[in-house]
């Protein structure tokens, strides 16, 4: 059934704190992920699977790749007459400050989304921490508790500069939010539920502080607003730059971990393409890898993730790498510990190798 309790709001204009060839021409939200997805697919699919059919999507200045991928939201059932997907201009320079994902200015300038809604709640998400969550549970918990805001967190599994930690007091109340996480901290996963009327009040009362992140702006008022927390026990994967992108992708090369993110009853939806099934030729040799439709495998692939339309010619060897759309690894070439952005061609008998600690990254190639 269609969710009548909540609409959604997703910020896709986080631009990253560190430079990388991977996000020179695209926002982090449209980074390709696990062969056929982009990061933005995850928040959109979480919304869709909870029956949410009205979603505001805050676009970065370089919106082209998101627009091409998301279109009018049809693949997420958001191409509708009533509600549906609203692509909204965000701060064109994106947000680059650590922990800043919900710029108050973007919320205020798109207030019409919240004013027109009739649902009691709004689910707000970023696009950098991905998970496959039953949002209904969070909304129900929020409703039962009667609080103003419910912030979703996980127990951090590692040091994490870019995430925020929640300082939680009695009865799960959030006392403050601090920058950075260590192992065991309560890591905010950029997902919260808020009462819509409360959000409209905040929009009206905090307009002077619109250059701040939403949570920075309301930091002094947590008690009054009644900010509560909800621990999510599942997998949440934060991707903020090249290094975390590579490491988190490689960790998904274990089916048990992968299956936590890709569940048949809550599918991650993405743009459909017409690619033939992957074709393996006589003598090919692929192991411990994810291989997308449209690939042609003649050579060897180990511990790697291949997007649609990648060709690994015979005698070529790809290991511990992420190879994006339409790359060609020519005869006898070797790619190791590397990320190849789309359309790259690795010439015959050449090597392109990084080390586990220093991944090599090749930016987009020319269309071929």
């Amino acid at each position, binding site marked *: 059934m269609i969710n009548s309790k909540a609409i959604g709001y997703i910020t896709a204009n986080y631009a990253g704190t560190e430079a990388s060839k991977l996000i020179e021409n695209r926002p982090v939200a449209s980074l390709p992920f696990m062969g056929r997805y982009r990061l933005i697919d995850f928040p959109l699919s979480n919304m869709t699977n909870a029956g949410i059919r009205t979603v505001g999507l805050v676009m970065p200045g370089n919106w082209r790749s998101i627009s091409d991928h998301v279109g009018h939201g049809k693949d997420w059932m958001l191409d509708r007459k009533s509600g549906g997907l609203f692509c909204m201009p965000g701060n064109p320079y994106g947000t680059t400050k650590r922990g800043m994902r919900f710029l108050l200015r973007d919320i205020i300038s798109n207030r019409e989304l919240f004013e027109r809604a009739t649902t009691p709640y709004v689910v707000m998400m970023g696009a950098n921490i991905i998970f496959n969550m039953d949002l209904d549970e969070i909304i129900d918990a929020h409703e039962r508790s009667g609080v103003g805001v419910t912030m979703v967190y996980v127990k951090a599994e590692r040091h994490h500069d870019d995430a925020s930690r929640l300082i939680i007091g009695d009865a799960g109340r959030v006392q403050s939010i601090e920058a950075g996480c260590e192992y065991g901290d309560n890591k905010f996963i950029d997902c919260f539920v808020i009462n819509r009327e409360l959000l409209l009040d905040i929009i009206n009362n905090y307009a002077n502080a619109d250059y701040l992140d939403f949570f920075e702006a309301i930091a002094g008022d947590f008690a009054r607003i009644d900010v509560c927390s909800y621990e999510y026990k599942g997998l949440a994967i934060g991707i903020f730059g090249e290094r975390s992108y590579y490491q988190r992708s490689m960790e998904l090369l274990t089916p048990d971990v992968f299956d936590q993110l890709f569940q048949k009853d809550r599918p991650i939806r993405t743009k459909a393409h*017409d690619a033939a*099934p992957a074709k393996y030729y006589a003598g090919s040799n692929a192991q411990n*890898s994810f*291989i*997308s439709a*449209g690939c042609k495998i003649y050579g060897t692939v180990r511990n790697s993730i291949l997007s649609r339309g990648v060709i690994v010619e015979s005698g070529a060897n790809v290991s511990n790498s992420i190879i994006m759309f339409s790359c060609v690894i020519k005869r006898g070439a070797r790619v190791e510990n590397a990320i190849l952005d789309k359309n790259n061609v690795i010439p015959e008998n050449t090597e392109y190798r990084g080390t586990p600690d220093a991944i090599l990254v090749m930016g987009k190639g020319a269309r071929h």
Partner: protein
Amino acid sequence: MSRKQCIAMLLAGGQGSRLGALTAKIAKPAVSFGGKYRIIDFTLSNCANSGIDTVGVLTQYRPYQLHEYVGSGRGWDLNEIGAGVSILPPYATQEGGAWYAGTADAVTQNLDYIKSHHPEYVLILSGDALYRMDYREMLATHITNNADLTIAVMPVPWEDASRFGILTTNEDHQVTKFTEKPEQPDSNLASMGIYVFSYDFLVNALEEDAINQRSSHDFGNDIIPKALADGKRLFVHEYNGFWKDVGTIASYHETSMDLLGENPEFDLFDTKHPIMSNDSTRPPHYIGPDGRVDDSLVANGCKIMGTVRHSIISTDCVVGDRAIVEDSVLLPGAVVKNGAHVSRAILGENAVVEEGVKLGSVDTTKDTAVVGNDVVIGKGE
């Protein structure tokens, strides 16, 4: 609306009983083929790649999955406003309901649909073969010859000609004779069951046929012989590309295997005439640390922990640890559990072969093993 040049009528109502267990619960055009496609994809893609924007799909036998799959036609870019794909099942009128009695009757009962588009030409297709054809070329042949009816033909080996409907032509490619399964063929041009009709001729021919009580209301048996007898202008359009029927278990298996190898005659990867489908959005397939895939097609959503050789593994299949699949076709969702061994078999959708079970034989003198949809093959079987 300005007059449309050409619309297509796709005959998709047959049971396909020669596909046995594969069509027990599903119409033949909706049967899975080639890892991620369904049989009707090939004909609908031909339509889209030929710039045809209006296709009536005539259904009758267990059409539910077919209707759901074809949907609005969006999968093939055939969702034009006021055109696109229309599903045309049998229906009731004031006089009661009437099932489609033959291929021609099915079209006759939908003459209102054809008339509402008022095209200059009507293309009649069936949805049970694997081929790539630009129907625009056939249409050009039809127009050049100022024909009433043009029949697509392909040359077959002379020794096989007596198994086909054979067309004899003069030097202008005009049809002089049509013989169903001739004992002594005088031509090797076999009808492919693909016709272009001029609108007025089609309407007249069908309306005359409808009131002929001795007619079986079939294009091959009735309409073509009558048209020849009446001295109408019938021509052939010769096609020399890949064309294979997938209407029997043997041909289904053989045609599937034809997709494999270095340079298959029918290349799914050909992007000039792409094969479109109503795609699901499943993740890439995973091949495990001990997985081994050789000379095969593997679709999205699969998990391959064992060995796959010279096979087609469709969407969401699982091949367990130490399992072996060879010379086989696994339809979507089929599972071969740990240690099982499947040879020269077709596993229906969501069929399961239990742990350690051996199914099928590499002996090509034996029939291909077929497991129906949702069937579980345990140790005892």
